[in-house]
């Protein structure tokens, strides 16, 4: 009982509960048909949200006002950079991945330059950066779908016993991110800045450097996602990251990370990402129209956030 009680106190439990619930609702509708396939599809699609979500989580944890709105544009650009560098050649996959990471890293650095040197609030800085990045992407990629090399495309689809390899790697990556957040000096400094930036500065935390590293990390993860998306969806394009503007923030919040900063948790990102994909699965399975689907998605997200926030405010 106390163990269950402790489990219920975890802020991330609600996102997993939500994911389980919508999955059960979907398979109740099909009378159990396709239950395994749904999980496989959800794992494959959640991977991308998890990676950008973790980047966004670090940024949001820096405290009020910190958010990276340039992620969609950065993902689009990195997808084009990766596919162009790879040029359909399997030998160039590693170089292409590094180029995508580099592209994301530069975007993240540029964001912080705007925030720090020009003293622009992060919301405005990253949003205006995204316009610049998108224009660069349109002239660089000419709006064409550039295909990935076959080996890289196959890798993004690889499955072991119905579990996508990419999902397994992303679980390991999330574990690494959790260690980075909770067990390293850098992670502790991010949390300290999020709790009180002045106090952190007075306590000797190198505020500027930590914030820069965090924006650069978020950008780099966006770059990685861009390359992986282009592999999985068989082609780079400008709009490939569009949906991650909302979902990267939604998974952070649904996952139980505090929007006010200073409090973060990684497992919740996985739960929330699975929840969002399974929600789409459920609504598609029910066969509701596009308008109703958007309406229900909004209502259910509000519902889950309220449920997850309930016990916290009581404390």
């Amino acid at each position: 009982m106390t163990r269950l009680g402790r489990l219920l106190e975890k802020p991330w439990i609600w996102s997993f509960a939500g994911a389980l619930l919508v999955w059960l609702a979907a398979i109740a509708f099909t009378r159990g048909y396709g239950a395994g396939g749904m999980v496989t599809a959800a794992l494959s699609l959640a991977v991308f949200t998890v990676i950008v979500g973790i980047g966004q989580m670090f940024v949001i944890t820096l405290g009020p006002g910190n958010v990276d709105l340039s992620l969609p544009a950065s993902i689009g650009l990195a997808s084009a950079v990766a596919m162009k560098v790879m040029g359909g050649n399997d030998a160039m996959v590693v170089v292409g991945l590094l180029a995508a990471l580099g592209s994301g890293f530069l975007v993240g650095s540029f964001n912080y330059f705007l925030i720090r040197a020009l003293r622009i609030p992060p919301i405005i800085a990253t949003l205006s950066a995204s316009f610049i990045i998108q224009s660069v992407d349109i002239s660089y990629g000419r709006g064409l779908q550039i295909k990935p090399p076959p080996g890289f495309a196959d890798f993004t689809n690889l499955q072991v016993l119905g579990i996508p390899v990419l999902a397994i790697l992303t679980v390991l990556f999330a574990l690494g991110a959790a260690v980075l957040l909770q067990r390293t000096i850098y992670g502790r400094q991010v949390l300290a800045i999020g709790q009180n930036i002045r106090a952190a500065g007075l306590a000797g935390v190198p505020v500027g450097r930590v914030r820069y590293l965090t924006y650069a990390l978020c950008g780099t993860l966006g770059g990685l996602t861009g390359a992986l998306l282009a592999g999985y969806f068989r082609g780079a394009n400008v709009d490939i990251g569009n949906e991650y503007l909302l979902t990267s923030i939604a998974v952070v919040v649904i996952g139980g990370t505090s929007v006010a900063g200073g409090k973060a948790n990684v497992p919740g990102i996985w739960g929330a990402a699975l929840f969002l994909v399974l929600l789409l699965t459920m609504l598609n399975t029910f066969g509701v129209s596009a308008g109703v689907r958007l309406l229900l998605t909004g209502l259910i997200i509000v519902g889950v956030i309220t449920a997850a926030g309930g016990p916290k405010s009581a404390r």
Partner: protein
Amino acid sequence: MKKSLVLSALAVILVSSTAYADTSGMRIAFSNNYAGNSWRQAMLKSYAAVTEKAVKDGIVAAADIFTTADKEVPTQAAQIQNLILQGYNAIVINAGSPDALNGAVKQACDAGIVVVSFDGIVTEPCAYRVVVDFKSMGLEEVEQMAKFQPKGGNLLEIRGLAGTSIDEAIHQGILDGVAKHPEFKIVGSVTGDWDQTTAQKAVATILPSLPDVVGIVDQGGDGYGAAQAFAAAGKPRPTIIMGNRQDELQWWKEQKAKDGYQTWSASIAPGVSSLAFWVAQQVLDGRTDIPHDLLVPYLAFTQDDFETVLPTIETGSVASHEYTQEESLAAIKANM
């Protein structure tokens, strides 16, 4: 009788030969609200190719292209107001909204400017609309499906951007087709937004719950993504109607080479932008008999001819057809 025929033919020749001179000093602007996908890029390329030649041939004085930085409607409205002030004689529009630009379009009409919209059309009555017959395209998809799957079976439908007239028209055509061919049943419907990534994701989420599907009826730009989703889930490949994209036709070619895979491909040609240009030029030329709503055919490819067009499409782009002035006159005539 014979004489009057000759005379009238002569009159037609006289009128059409003066046609070139009349617009030679006129300037036509193109207001476009988005350039970020392959279809839009092909649209701009077709338009530029046709209009550059028209300017060189002295048919019009200038044909400038303006694309707004974002997809926002207010930006495009402001852009149209600027074009009015700059004194263009005609504005060709691919509009971000069917009705939100009507105010700006009305201002242009009141200033004596000819407005021709296409693809993203405007509902303002004073403007011209070049519309592709999407409903018959949807109907034809099911007709073609009946040829490839004579026994019938379950269909999956992929819809386009919700709330657009194009999505509604194609969907209606498909419903009409299924009503005509009761051997088919639509067992699932997802939203693909004419986008490969969105379509693949949507199909991947609905696929586990679907019974066996013999065919996919869609709206173009979504066929390749659907094929990938079926492959990823390890499900047998259905007959997927294609939408003239290079990657779709390439995939079709590979499947055909493997086991004689058969399907059909149709979409709106991005080059319809050049038709809109010629309509503007003709109206400026003084023609008053052109209907404000012009229905033009879609561009389709079959098992026999898609491989001849495939090498001409740039990698990652979409099949297009650029209208010459003569073809445009014929297309206009077909509506009268």
